[in-house]
């Protein structure tokens, strides 16, 4: 056995899975999380980090397309585990680990991948853009054909209006730039701004930000494949720097069939699940892991009382957490009061008044930076469970 095969085998003992939650299949996600914990596999945060893609349930057509894009972006060696039901989880993960250790299969997969171009030192394709020297560049996995740059080499036009590039949205790419307005007054010849659409991408638009500075505008999708994020939710942020200028909310559905998982019979477990996401987004990894352990105990109906109380006490007492959450506003409440309400329910105290209406997610997000926006989504915990694809 060669060195590479040995390394593959050794590494396959502890792969880094990217877990994709699908609306309507919460039970499968919980089974996956419990199984990963049993195996000691630490979940990955991004496709580049992951070597194993776990799909928890049956996604609807749009979500399936997004998942396929993420699968395409994962560097080899890679494995995919689709678990339509909770009982499929152990065997699917075993098979995926075995596939990761299988050197011939991985080599074949890597050779056959048409859409993914791994970086190689030979890849020095220098494109001819007239006078402009773009240096070396790589084309990534996203299938941009070479655009006709010659057509854009006009001199001194006032406004070039490139269409937004129709990238399939994919959770982790930030390239859906829109038009590229008014370059006034190029003093003849080629200017750096004149490169039009380098690499087939329109340049980022610019607009004044909240401080009156001209800043690039990026359209960045968050979700639907994102760790500690509501299943099937996709929010496209319009970002300047890291400040959200606008947010467009979409729901990608799961395939029909599964019933509602959190049906009100197990409030403690449901709140622990939401709290685990919030704590993970807040970066308190240890406490988030605790919340997941307790959640699974609560679902089995054998929660350790002392451990639960310690968890509630420690979370509630954390000044740092309160400091980070209390300025994240949810209409009349804020993220900290929301979390405190969940903690009260978990601790078995009287259910707090949750009747306060919250404005729509897209409005709440405007003006926040990305860190606060992520906390807000986790604290709001929008119910995406009901989204079900209509069968065509």
């Amino acid at each position, binding site marked *: 056995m060669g060195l590479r095969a040995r*390394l*593959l085998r*050794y*590494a396959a*003992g*502890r792969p880094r899975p990217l877990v994709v939650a699908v609306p309507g299949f919460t039970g499968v996600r919980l089974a996956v999380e419990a199984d990963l*914990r*049993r195996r*000691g596999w*630490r979940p990955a*945060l*991004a496709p*580049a*980090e992951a*070597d194993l893609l776990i799909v928890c349930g049956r996604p609807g057509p749009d979500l399936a397309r997004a998942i396929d894009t993420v699968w395409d*972006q994962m*560097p080899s*060696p890679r494995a995919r585990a689709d678990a339509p039901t909770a009982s499929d989880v152990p065997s699917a993960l075993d098979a995926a680990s075995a596939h990761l250790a299988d050197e011939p299969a991985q080599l074949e997969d890597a050779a056959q991948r048409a859409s*993914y*171009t791994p*970086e190689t030192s030979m*890849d020095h394709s220098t494109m001819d853009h007239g006078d402009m020297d773009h240096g070396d*560049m*790589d084309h*990534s996995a*996203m299938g*941009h054909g070479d655009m006709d740059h010659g057509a854009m080499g006009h001199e001194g036009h006032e406004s070039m209006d490139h269409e937004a590039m129709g990238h399939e949205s994919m*959770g*982790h*790419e*930030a*390239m859906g730039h829109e038009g590229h307005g008014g370059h006034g007054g190029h003093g003849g010849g080629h200017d750096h701004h004149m490169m039009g659409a*380098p*690499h*087939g*991408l329109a340049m980022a638009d610019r607009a004044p930000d909240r401080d009156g500075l001209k800043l690039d505008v*990026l359209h960045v999708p968050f979700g639907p494949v*994102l*760790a*500690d994020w509501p299943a099937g939710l996709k929010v496209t942020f319009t970002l300047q*720097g*890291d400040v959200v200028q606008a947010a467009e909310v979409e729901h990608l559905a799961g395939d029909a069939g599964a019933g509602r998982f959190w049906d009100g019979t197990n409030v403690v477990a449901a709140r622990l699940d939401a709290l685990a996401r919030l704590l993970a*987004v*807040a*970066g*308190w*990894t*240890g406490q988030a*892991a*605790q919340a*997941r*352990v307790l959640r699974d105990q609560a679902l089995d109906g054998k929660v350790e009382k002392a451990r639960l109380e310690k968890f509630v006490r420690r979370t509630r007492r*954390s000044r740092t957490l309160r*400091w*980070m959450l209390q*300025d994240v506003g949810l209409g009349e409440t804020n993220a900290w009061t929301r979390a405190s309400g969940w903690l009260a329910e978990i601790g078995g105290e009287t259910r707090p008044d949750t009747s306060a209406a919250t404005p729509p997610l897209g409005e709440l997000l405007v003006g926040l*930076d*990305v*860190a*606060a926006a992520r906390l807000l989504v986790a604290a709001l915990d929008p119910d995406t469970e009901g989204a079900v694809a209509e069968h065509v």
Partner: protein
Amino acid sequence: MSESLLVLPLLVAVLTVAAAAFDAVLGASAAGVPGAWRAWDAPLRETARLLVRQRRSTLAADRLLRRAGVLVLPVAAVLAAAVLPLGGARAASDMSVGIVWFNAMEVAVWAGVWLAGWGVNSAYPLVGGYRMIAQGLAYELPHMFALITVAVGAESLRFSDVVTAQHDLWFAVQMPVAFLVYLLSALAMAFWGPMSSPVGADLAGGAAAELSGADRLVFSAGRHAMLAVAAAAAVPLFLGGGAGPLLPAWLWALLKTLAVLAVLVWTAHRLPVLRMDRFMTFAWTALIPATLLQLLVTGLVAL
């Protein structure tokens, strides 16, 4: 120059693996993994995994900047370690401006993270890079005042003089505020734990989100190495270097380093990540005055 120049990268590597292994065990234990101690080999498996992995290429990435940024991390860590006295042994380079050199290497890490975040041409890493710069603006001034306090107390910028000056009383006791601020900035140097927003989970890994294969390995190793070196520097700066009863100086220095490192790694599991807009206010309104006051007190004592 001495033989410590050869030993140094090896020492840094050992501490790096130790930090990563301890972190993995703590993580597994918090997650309730049965037999959590068995996770100690997670960094080795992760290394194997990344060695056989393809690199990820993003569209229109600036490969040179990305590679430079990634490579800066381990290089800066080893160069920063070069001025640290290794217990009884001399530092690889005991230069007269050792504290300034150490600080310069640590600021090079900002550049590394920023370049790596910018170079891949993707929004998540770019925002991670922004956060690193914001974090630098927040922690660097209190951190520099803490280091200046040490230099004033020792009346020298040379690490070996700093150790000698603590013959009677450790600086951790003499200047507790500076010590606490240093521990906080040790986390910030390695963007670790509460200061890890540049590679935050809320950004799918931030500046490191698009790194795969060898790039990710070097980035991650460099980050752990920086944490280890920051912990090792706390020993000559505040904890009396190799001073201690019975045991030889090098062993004391090693034990103290491991203790500080363990505290830093443990903190990551016990605290949420600080949002930079919130921490910035705290750093400028509370930490800077506190460190200035500490500097004033130390200055009066030194007079």
